[in-house]
């Protein structure tokens, strides 16, 4: 029997890092920056939080507030730096965005594993992992009453605060893009920077701010994954390929963060489907199930390009550097 009540919360928890990643990437892409460094940035966001939490736990801190604030601030700073690096290379120096993004991903993953490995050494642990159970306790604290309200509590209240924040940020990003002047300007920058520039919009500023904001949001996905989903356990390559899945999710949601809320849960579900479907001892079948999110993305790409509606296309100048006096 398929256990929906236990499956759905697991799917949602799998989906939250993807939601952070895709909201961040959507914000970035709307400014015309195709940031393929998102997987690396999520690693950087995670490891920065882990480093902060590790030293606070080592120092024997007791403040609940600091247990949340230190990893959070560290993570924000870590991913912000990555975002700034990306912007400096692609906006100021106008380097190729694909190359920069891919390099940033490789760099971020390596950075995570390097510092992760160093901490493991410092901690002198016997298993190759760091356990931050004190910090994780605060991050994964559920809403009060989650376990008293039966299935309702389990479905809606059994998550840490970062999960609720992910949904709020996604909805806020949607509102920003659709209804505000800043959003209108941002869309114009991504569609046609020359037009935006001629209209008096500071293109570089919009690219910098939205890309850095996007990186910070994406970095939170990494933090959530470590502090809440894995209950504070960091091990090398733990985060896996979720960053790529987040980028796929951007395409799946046709650049709409509000759609991303449900879509990320769907992706999360597809991602863990293989654990819930009895496949016997045949591991090959499990691998096939793991492909599901990517297959769905390809199907969406095919459908959205067949329908060829202009609003559903990627921002027109996505991936292109802008230089005002260029011919």
């Amino acid at each position: 029997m398929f256990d929906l009540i236990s499956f759905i919360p697991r799917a949602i928890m799998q989906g939250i890092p993807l939601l952070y990643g895709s909201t961040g990437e959507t914000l970035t892409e709307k400014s015309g920056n195709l940031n393929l460094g998102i997987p690396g940035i999520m690693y950087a966001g995670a490891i920065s939080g882990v480093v902060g939490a590790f030293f606070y736990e080592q120092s024997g801190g007791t403040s609940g507030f600091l247990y949340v604030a230190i990893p959070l601030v560290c993570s924000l700073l870590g991913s912000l730096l990555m975002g700034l690096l990306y912007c400096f290379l692609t906006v100021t120096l106008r380097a190729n965005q694909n190359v920069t993004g891919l390099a940033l991903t490789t760099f971020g993953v390596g950075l995570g594993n390097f510092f992760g490995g160093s901490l493991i050494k410092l901690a002198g642990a016997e298993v190759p992992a760091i356990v931050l159970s004190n910090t994780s306790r605060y991050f994964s604290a559920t809403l009060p009453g989650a376990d008293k309200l039966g299935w309702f509590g389990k479905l809606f209240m059994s998550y840490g605060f970062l999960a609720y924040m992910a949904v709020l940020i996604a909805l806020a990003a949607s509102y920003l893009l659709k209804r505000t002047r800043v959003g209108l300007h941002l869309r114009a920058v991504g569609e046609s920077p020359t037009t935006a520039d001629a209209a008096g919009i500071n293109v570089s500023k919009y690219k910098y701010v939205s890309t850095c904001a996007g990186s910070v949001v994406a970095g939170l996905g990494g933090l959530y994954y470590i502090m809440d989903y894995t209950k504070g356990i960091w091990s090398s390559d733990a985060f896996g390929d979720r960053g790529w899945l987040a980028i796929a999710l951007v395409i799946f949601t046709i650049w709409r963060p509000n759609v991303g809320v449900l879509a990320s849960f769907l992706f999360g579900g597809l991602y863990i489907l293989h654990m819930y479907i009895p496949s016997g001892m045949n591991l090959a079948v499990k691998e096939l199930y793991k492909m599901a999110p990517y297959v769905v993305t390809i199907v969406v790409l095919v459908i959205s390009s067949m329908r060829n509606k202009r609003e559903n296309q990627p921002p027109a100048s996505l991936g292109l550097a802008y230089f005002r006096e260029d011919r």
Partner: protein
Amino acid sequence: MDNKIPAVTMRDITKRFGSTLANDKVWLDIYRGEILALLGENGSGKTTLMNMLSGIYFPDEGEIQIDGKDVVIRSPKDAFDLGVGMIHQHFKLVDVLTAAENIVLGLPGKLDLKAAAQKIREICDAYGFEVDPDQKVYDMSVSQKQTVEIVKVLYRGADILILDEPTAVLTPQEIDKLFTVLRNMRDDGKAIVIITHKMHEVEALSDRVAILRHGQFIGDMPTKKTNAQEMTNMMVGHAVTLNIDRPEPENPKPRIEVKGLTVRSMDGILKLDDVSFTAYSGEILGIAGISGCGQKELLEAIAGLQPVEAGSISYIDDNGGREELIGKDPLSIQQMGVALSFVPEDRLGMGLVGNMDIGNNMMLRSYRSGRGIFTNRKAPYKLAHQMVDFLEIATPSVETPVRRLSGGNVQKVLVGREIANAPSVLLTAYAVRGLDINSSYLIYDTINAQKMRGVAVIYVGEDLDVLLELADRILVLCGGKVSGIVPGRGAKKRDVGLMMTKLGGKSDE
């Protein structure tokens, strides 16, 4: 009029791009209640000068005064604040946004599209525009987009308007409408600058002309006191004859016969509907029509680039032998002597590779002719040198990437290459799009020379006046159908214009 204070005074404006001097100590006065035509060849620095007034570029030297006060314009926003608005040649609109969203783009304050729509309607009523605030830009015709651009600058309260080649893409009827609106705005006390190449428009519309040549200010004068010949001479720097030759076709024979040609686009839209005509050797067949009426599809179908739904295209050689072109691949059609030079809106889109130099672009046509696995590099570079000399292409060298050349020069490379192939059929579309008068005449002469050689020329043009002077016969397309074929000699602009908008050209009046 003489003792009026100028709305804009530009003094000793200089702008360099690398080693190129785009503007050299230019003086310019712009008055309110007056339409100023800014004339000059391609690359003479008209657009650069106006871009400095609208804040896209920043002058290296010189000063700008608005209403007698010194100003510094560092960005388009500064320009708007001073009441300067520019309508660029390539529209600065975001396709996926609506008219209203485009119009309020870049303005501060809370986003209130309802209030914006209201204000847009008021502006439209005042000057006689038609704009639907909720229409998406990608659904609009070129003329509608231009209207949105004009409303956009008026919405910002601009009273100094600059229009960069506003008529290049409009039909004669749309041009009349635009001119009426511009006159309305002039009578309302706004200062208007239009940049154009077309002499008759200068004469019809402007009150004053200012002329630039090679980045230098040559002079200005009231339009009434000058004429097209004098203005052209000032622009070019020497006397130019303004008549396009039209030699009688010699011994015309059918060369291309198109029957019942029907073409559908990828999305299933009917682009050409039952088109039939014959193109003769030694003759220029002009094709007129509002842009996007199937001109591109017609040429591409002949060149073998466009799948055809129905109909036939026959190539008839000198001895009367017929060959069907449909079903052949572009390469074999090309080898039969059918050359296509299509100048798309962005000029580089088809036929040239922007990052390759002139010589290598020549080679795109000849790379198969080398011996063995090596290509013959000498011949194309020799050809490139000849072309640079003959067509007066302004380039540092033949090794310069084509992308770096100015638009007009890019076009010369493209047209020159196709002609150098010694074709028997020359298909050309928008060969002089955006070219200045001197270069245009060079191209007309080249095309005429081909015609005298006995080449069947199919010339798709956007400037009706030129078509009427150049073509032996004019085929008018309207919505993918043949609206009529008229002899070029004695054809009336008005009639052709009507045929462009209506099948057969019968008006209801």
